[in-house]
């Protein structure tokens, strides 16, 4: 009886709805799977992911090749593990670019108001008309296909999202008494931004990171599928899908394996974002998900 009471109290303190924890948990597990795959691939893969072995081409899953092999006899599991690395690399760097540019811009707009806010928000509206993939295709046309140009393009295209979230959060925080007190005490704006605003919008920004990460994974996959992402021989999930094209009707495993990997990564980061949103803003979360 006492135990039951305790566990209920703990649950209500952590989060209001019972489904909330499971969303966060599920998201964390899926993200952890992708992360661990990438880390594992740094030290160990069952086979060389780029080594062709024609004698075992197009084999179904077995004890020697857990996920089977592709049209050149390359081990699919090894390729998926190494592919996770590319997916995470592009995600981490593009989210970092977006957060590092977008967050200060948004906070600045929210604190300064007036013309600064107007210009920043109008500019981000216009940038929104350039989706990540379109910008990445333009970059590929200019600089050639590479992981770096993909990351920069996806990162830049995600700046408006961070600017908007940071601005909205800042507008809320600026009316709080502790900010008014800090302003009354004539603290410099940069100090107010770092000490009072940023810590209070971290939750919203984390949600944005997670959601942007999912979009970056999707954009990278599409870009590699178009042959404009990471160039061969490094395996990426999107290009594995492209290379499976000839075998769509005959050997679906080649499509299913990278396809499921992409879906798991995107689902993981989306669920993580939803879970974080419910955790940081229960009122907002209830309507979504």
């Amino acid at each position, binding site marked *: 009886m006492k135990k039951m009471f305790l566990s209920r109290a703990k649950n209500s303190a952590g989060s209001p709805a019972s489904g909330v924890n499971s969303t966060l948990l599920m998201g964390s597990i899926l993200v952890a799977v992708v992360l661990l795959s990438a880390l594992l691939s740094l030290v160990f893969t069952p086979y060389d992911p780029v080594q062709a072995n024609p004698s075992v081409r197009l084999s179904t899953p077995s004890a020697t090749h857990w996920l089977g092999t592709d049209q050149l006899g390359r081990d699919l599991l090894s390729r998926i593990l190494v592919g996770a690395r590319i997916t995470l690399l592009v995600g981490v760097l593009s989210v970092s670019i977006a957060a590092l540019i977008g967050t200060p811009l948004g906070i600045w707009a929210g604190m300064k108001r007036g013309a600064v806010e107007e210009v920043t928000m*109008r*500019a981000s*509206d*216009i*940038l*929104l*008309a*350039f*989706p990540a*993939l*379109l910008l990445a*295709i*333009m970059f*590929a*046309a*200019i*600089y050639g296909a590479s992981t770096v140009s993909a990351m920069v393009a996806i990162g830049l295209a995600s700046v408006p999202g961070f600017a908007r979230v940071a601005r909205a959060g800042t507008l809320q925080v600026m009316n709080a008494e502790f900010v008014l007190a800090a302003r009354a005490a004539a603290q410099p704006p940069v100090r107010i931004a770092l000490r009072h605003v940023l810590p209070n919008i971290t939750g919203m920004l984390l949600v944005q990171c997670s959601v942007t990460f*999912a979009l970056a994974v*999707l954009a990278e*996959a*599409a870009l590699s*599928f*178009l042959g*404009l992402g990471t160039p061969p021989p490094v395996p990426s999930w999107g290009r594995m*899908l492209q290379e*499976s*094209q000839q075998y*769509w*009707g*005959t050997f*679906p495993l080649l*499509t299913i394996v990278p*396809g499921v990997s*992409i*879906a*798991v990564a*995107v*689902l993981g980061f*989306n*669920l993580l974002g*939803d879970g974080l949103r419910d955790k940081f803003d229960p009122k907002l979360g*209830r*309507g*979504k*998900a």
Partner: protein
Amino acid sequence: MLLRLGSNLARFVLSLCVATIAVFAMMRVLPGDPAVIAAGENASPQIVASLAHQFGTDRPLVVQYWDWFSGLWRGDFGISYVTRTDISPLVADKVQVSLILVTLAMALALAIAIPAGTIAAVRHNKPSGTLISALSQLGIAIPGFLLGIVLVSFFALRLGWLPANGWVAPVEGFSSFLSRLVLPVMALAGVQSAILVRYVRSAVLGIMHEDYLRTARAKGLSPLRALAKHGLRNAAIPVLTVTSVQFSALIIGAVVIERVFVIPGLGSMLLAAVGNRDLLTVQSVVMVLVAITLIVNLLVDMLYTILDPRIRAA
């Protein structure tokens, strides 16, 4: 109201102008002289200079921009540096294909998402509502081109019910035109409907406890009748916002879908141009794609004004 529509229009024109500057700066200033690229790495300076003169890229950038910009309003995109042909007729041809694809996909996505999202909201604490939410979460994680591959593999290659790819203009045979559209439109609409369901659900959830709905219920209307009569108009505003934001995702999604289904639209044109390093064609197609997005945003802004008397009065 007229004032509001006027300011919508003004903002659209301004955005479009800024977008042309952004595209021009990215495509023309960053990569350097197109004549150098077109002439190849080992070309003599004389050849580069004559190409630059032919393309007009030896003039100041401002003049080049103005030339391109004023051409855009006349529907003249200039001449490709690589194929040396006029870009405009090609764009005009391809844009129809892409618009058919995108419009049908958006219509299908809304046709699925509005009823599904409403049911998910009304039954939000019942299994059917939860199931719809879970399915939409899963749907968002599956990129459109992956869904396209799955649809092709199954319905076209395995079952042979529909053609796997290609494009037939409606005038050449309406039934083969339609049969080739089914799978790409489904692939494009799938992800969009999954995204829209979430917003329809949260919009309907948001209005479900409003006083006017309680009044309608008190008058004896059933929950769904009350929603249909009084609620959907109010829920439409946030859904419209998302629809306009999602339109740009749909247009770029169509670029990839065109690759999967070998459809000769703007996406295929863009990718071919990227492959050839045909920068002026890339620049033109990107501008058209961005302009379509901005036009849709403008139309949605205008729709708000018509849908919501409160905005109209403001």
